[in-house]
């Protein structure tokens, strides 16, 4: 059952991820954003299979909830017309695919050659309680810094979106 779910979710993740970056039917950014939602939700399914229930919930809330809404807001705010810029730069496409295949092949070959998963078994029962304990004991300083970072990000965004940028 778990294996079947793993294959379903990873296939969904990869297919939707491919449709985000290279949809053969349309080059509309809204379509890409919608497929990004599907990618992220199926990745949350993979997180559930890895017993990271809290992170799956956070993934759906933060990415599929907040980040995608932000993307859609900006796409609709800018009202980008996908004008007839359909001329593919064939040289660029071929080089990009070549680079992609070499990077992906290199990573996969390295993973398989390293034997990294040898006699490792999935036995971590990472409950939300454990995560919270770790977060508020060992990682409390990074946690606080993260709050400051979010504040800085917020101020930066407000400053950047002022009409007369000085």
């Amino acid at each position, binding site marked *: 059952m778990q294996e079947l779910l793993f294959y379903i979710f990873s296939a969904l993740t990869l297919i939707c991820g491919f449709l985000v970056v290279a949809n053969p039917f349309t080059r509309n950014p809204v379509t890409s954003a919608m497929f990004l939602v599907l990618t992220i939700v199926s990745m949350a399914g993979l997180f559930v299979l890895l017993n*990271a229930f809290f*992170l799956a919930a956070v993934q759906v809330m933060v*990415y599929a909830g907040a980040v995608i809404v932000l993307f859609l807001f900006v796409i609709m705010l800018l009202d*980008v017309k996908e004008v007839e810029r359909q001329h593919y730069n064939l040289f660029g496409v071929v080089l990009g695919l070549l680079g992609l295949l070499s990077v992906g092949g290199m990573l996969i070959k390295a993973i398989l050659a390293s034997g*990294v998963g040898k006699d490792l078994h999935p036995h971590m029962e990472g409950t939300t309680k454990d995560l919270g304990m770790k977060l508020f004991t060992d990682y409390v300083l990074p946690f606080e810094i993260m709050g400051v970072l*979010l504040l800085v*990000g917020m101020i930066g965004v407000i400053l950047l979106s002022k009409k007369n940028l000085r």
Partner: protein
Amino acid sequence: MIGLEQYLIVSALLFSLGMMGVILRRNLIVIYMGLELMLNAANLALVSFSRFTDTIDGQVMVFFVITVAAAEVAVGLALIVALYRKRQTTEVGDLTSLKL
């Protein structure tokens, strides 16, 4: 039996897909989505390492990565909007001069 390798392979493939988006697409917003895919691939690798090595630190790391990614998306999209106000374009091919 699904082992660590399978998860890492999915993660590697997703990372290369995101990289393909960054390289091939010329719309700034879609390039940003490619960056998100790459961040997500790293998250998947971290969570699977955490599950298979019996430590929860990977999940804490992913929590921080998600937070930083949210802040990064907000700032990046604000930059794109500011750029669009100046230049009326989001295509990287049109952004060839340093001067605004």
